[in-house]
């Protein structure tokens, strides 16, 4: 009991009466609640990761069978042009699509929060709604819209008389995918920002107004700083999403088989290595390297984001 109360984290426990209790708690009672979660987490997260690490150290060879090869798979990956091309593609996607999406989400959230709209509630839920649409269905719908057969680009091109819109050309295909992803997650990010803006203490606005700050000044001096934390979170999630890009290109691949290859993104590469090539060891290597790169970049963003917050 005394050790419990001494823990600084449980501030409330200091006020706990030390009188006798009919059902005393053991030190391990918390594990009854946390235990099942931890068991599943270990089984479904830590063991698969460990197994993938193990696999990545082997190579199944025609001669000699399954051999321990140390880090040969990693060495091979670092010289694998197909992998790095896909990596560069998602990197470019990240640098272009994420700022656009988060910027638009920010504009939408600030508009909602301005209290200057008619029908704020409607706008909030309407823009959020695409998030509920499965990525597969979103890619299917946009694929149809992009398509020449019964899509809208065909109709638009007919109207203009030239083939202006070519969503599946090598130049535009990444943009087309970016549009699908933006459509899916714009409202979600908007809502995250909006929720953070709603809890900015009212007296901050009052103080700003007393100081003669206009609406724009309020945005830059109060609202944007308040959004730093959620912005870091949203950026991290978007980085993860970009590096793990799979659903949208894999679905649009059906419509543009010549443009979207099997190693278009690293995740698609890992998938095709496993399921078309039966190269499980190498596939595990790709999954691990991408996981590590994602985690490192996410970590850097978080550290940078919070450091700026403290400045």
């Amino acid at each position: 009991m005394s050790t419990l109360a001494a823990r600084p984290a449980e501030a409330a426990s200091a006020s706990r009466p030390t009188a006798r209790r009919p059902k005393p708690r053991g030190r391990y009672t918390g594990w009854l609640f946390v235990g099942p979660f931890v068991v599943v987490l270990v089984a479904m997260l830590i063991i698969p990761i460990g197994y993938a690490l193990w696999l990545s150290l082997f190579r199944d060879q025609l001669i000699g069978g399954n051999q321990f090869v140390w880090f040969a798979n990693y060495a091979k990956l670092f010289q694998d042009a197909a992998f790095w091309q896909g990596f560069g593609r998602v990197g470019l996607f990240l640098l272009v699509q994420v700022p656009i999406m988060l910027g638009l989400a920010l504009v939408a959230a600030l508009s909602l929060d301005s209290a200057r709209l008619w029908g704020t509630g409607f706008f909030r839920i309407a823009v959020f709604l695409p998030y509920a649409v499965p990525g597969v269905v979103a890619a299917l719908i946009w694929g149809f819209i992009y398509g020449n057969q019964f899509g809208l680009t065909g109709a638009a091109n007919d109207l203009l008389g030239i083939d202006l819109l070519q969503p599946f050309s090598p130049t535009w295909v990444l943009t087309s995918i970016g549009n699908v992803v933006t459509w899916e997650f714009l409202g979600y990010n908007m809502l995250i920002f909006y929720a953070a803006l709603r809890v900015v203490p009212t007296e901050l606005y009052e103080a700003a107004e007393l100081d003669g700050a206009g609406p724009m000044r309020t945005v830059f001096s109060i609202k944007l700083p308040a959004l730093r934390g959620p912005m870091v979170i949203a950026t991290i999630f978007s980085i993860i999403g970009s590096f793990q890009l799979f659903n949208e290109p894999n679905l649009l691949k059906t419509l543009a088989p010549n443009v979207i290859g099997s190693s278009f993104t690293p995740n698609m590469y890992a998938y095709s290595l496993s399921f078309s090539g039966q190269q499980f060891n190498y596939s595990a290597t790709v999954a691990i390297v991408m996981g590590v790169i994602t985690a490192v970049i996410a970590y850097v963003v978080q550290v940078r984001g919070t450091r700026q917050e403290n400045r």
Partner: protein
Amino acid sequence: MSTLQQPAAGATTPATVTEATTTQRDPRDRSTRASRQRRAGKPVDGRKVKRSGLLTAVMVVFVVYSFAPLFYLLVNSTKTQASLLSTFGLWFGGDFNLWQNIVDTVTYNDGIFMQWLGNTLLYVVVGAGGATLLATVAGYGMAKFQFPGRRAVFAVVLGAIAVPGTALAVPTFLLFSQVGLTNTPWSIILPSLISPFGMYLIWTYAIDAIPTELIEAARMDGAGEFRIFFTIALKLLTPGVVTVLLFAVVATWNNYFLPLIMLSDPKWYPLTVGLNQWNAQATGSGAQPIYNLVVTGSLLTIIPIVVAFLFLQRFWQSGLAAGSVKA
């Protein structure tokens, strides 16, 4: 200046002052209070906020962007395969064929669509339901108990949030194929059971939403720990739980990568993988385009989840607010 300051003090309710000085205990309470104030008129001098046509127009553009593809889907689900190809995409054309399309969708190939729907429901109920239960119980445990190894759990959970689900899918597949779990419902359900972010959300939510004094009082009355959890804590956690549940349901309902790699038998497919298989049918040799079924099937796939979001708005929006601010 003083004339401006005077009504300012009068216009703000005393709640504002206490809000700043006291620690904010209940995130739900705080957010509703804040929004109530803001809705009453933000500027301190009592003027009503001028509505802005420009900002509303900006939002209209966002809404059009968000709705256009859904409208496209709705319009085209009313068309036959033939008029899909012959009429303009963004407006109704040809015969109104929605009901026939729905009948065709659910009866095509001996009703495989209904089988996929049933599978999806199974994965959602057991997978997302289980994930929410585990996350809720564990989040409560982390918030209200001290125990050896708590810091280790904290570290693992934070690390786990950073591990993307899709990166795990291939390793999990490799593991499951070793133990013979691939191509069974378990291969979808078991990986769906982990929700580190959900657990984190409940945890931060429970710290404020459940007063420790209340738990202590119940203990004094002789209630067991699990009884306290199910009769007292769960009620107070409801908005957080609904949020976690809803996002777990979306993640499971929309899951594509995992079932794609785990399942080879169409009888275990969820809707997402099944729909894509229909879509791919149109290409390749012996192509049999059934675009009208893909479009109608897509519509049927999104309706339940959209309805769930609309009806549970009140819950998940407050839960999301609490979670995102803490995170």
